[in-house]
């Protein structure tokens, strides 16, 4: 055995690395990743599994440019479109293992201007990169979706989408698309707890250019809704309930106060 090879079975080493990750010991994971070549892969699995891209976009793009193999480790990507440089488009395009895509378009801590929610305000390169990401077969969860006037085909082209978390003021348009149409994704879980009625209405009623709905709700098993004085009212809830025959979990929150009633 090579003197510098650890004398511990590999699977035990991996278990130790997994335990470090479970305990959130990032500093130790970083140290381990540089201690021995054999530890690099199991450490990177955890170190790069969750990535948030916002104002660090240029650094992120540079990192991927220098270490292209890192992209395969990224399984959860949070994108805050606060930085609309072309760097971000280059960084997003190669990602093809992302399972959970979170889009945070809101005022964050220290945010001076709101991130753009309107699809048309994104540059064509970023639109292209996001469209590419949405159509990745690896994506199964989309969180905090709140783009306005995005083409209906954007969500609809996510072939293996199972869970959608939609927020206001998301809306969709049925603009023509050159993308070959696939069947609408068969959703199993929908969370509309942060979406007011226009967003949910748009999701339910807008159609793709080929006339099909954006999503297929027939296999929906879990529904989370929040109703504020009728703003997200019973018609949308009823419409969703009627479209599925497999619902197993329903989480309903009714909010009642004078503030929301006057919205």
């Amino acid at each position, binding site marked *: 055995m090579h003197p510098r090879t650890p004398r511990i079975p590999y699977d035990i080493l991996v278990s130790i690395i997994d335990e470090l990750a479970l305990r959130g010991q990032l500093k130790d994971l970083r140290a381990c990743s540089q201690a021995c070549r054999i530890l690099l892969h199991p450490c990177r699995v955890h170190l790069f599994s969750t990535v948030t891209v916002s104002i660090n976009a240029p650094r992120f793009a540079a990192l991927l440019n220098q270490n292209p193999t890192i992209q395969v480790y990224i399984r959860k990507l949070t994108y805050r479109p606060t930085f609309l440089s072309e760097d971000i488009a280059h960084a997003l395009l190669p990602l093809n293992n992302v399972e959970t895509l979170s889009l945070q378009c809101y005022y964050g801590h220290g945010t001076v201007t709101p991130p753009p929610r309107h699809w048309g305000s994104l540059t064509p390169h970023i639109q292209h990169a996001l469209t590419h990401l949405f159509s990745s077969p690896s994506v199964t969860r989309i969180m905090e979706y709140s783009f306005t006037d995005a083409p209906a085909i954007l969500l609809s082209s996510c072939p293996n989408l199972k869970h959608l978390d939609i927020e206001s003021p998301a809306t969709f348009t049925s603009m023509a698309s050159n993308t070959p149409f696939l069947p609408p994704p068969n959703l199993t879980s929908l969370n509309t707890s942060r979406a007011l*009625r226009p967003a949910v209405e748009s999701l339910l009623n807008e159609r793709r250019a080929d006339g099909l709905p954006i999503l297929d709700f027939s296999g929906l*098993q879990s529904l989370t809704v929040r*109703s504020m*004085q*009728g*703003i997200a*009212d*019973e018609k949308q*809830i*009823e419409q969703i*309930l*009627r479209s599925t*025959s*497999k*619902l*197993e*979990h*329903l*989480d*309903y*929150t*009714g*909010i*009642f*106060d*004078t*503030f*929301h*009633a*006057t*919205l």
Partner: protein
Amino acid sequence: MNSDQLSASSVSQVTLPDNFAQALMIPLPTLRSLWIEWNINDDAVSDEFPGFINALQVLASCPNCINELSLTLLTPWSHTLANQDWEKIDHVLADRSTFRRLEKLSIKFWSHLHIDDESGEKRMQDCLTEFRVTKLLRLSLASSDYLDFQFTLDDDEPLGLFD
């Protein structure tokens, strides 16, 4: 009136809870778990509890396979369920012909006001006595075989039901 145009003065007229009850009349034969939360944020709103109870009654009136039921009421301190409201909830839950598959029941009664002094605690106990909450729930549970039950008045001070 368009619900988007509701004014503060007309809030007590909102009948959304009943509409939700209406939505629940759709057969949901595969439903296993149902979580309902009523979140009442200020004193200007009233008369919401009947809607909450209606939803529960509608659900109980349909054949269902629910095995997990969670009811949460989040209210200002001034809002408390009246005796007859608790009796209705008690009646629905105690009837073993309705929720036949129920294995896990969670009832949480939260107050926005933090009870952090003796007078607050006394007010809470007075409320419980006045509305006979523990007595009613104890009655319904005595004949049931619910596996799990929690009743909470305050996030820091979960109340032992049989204390």
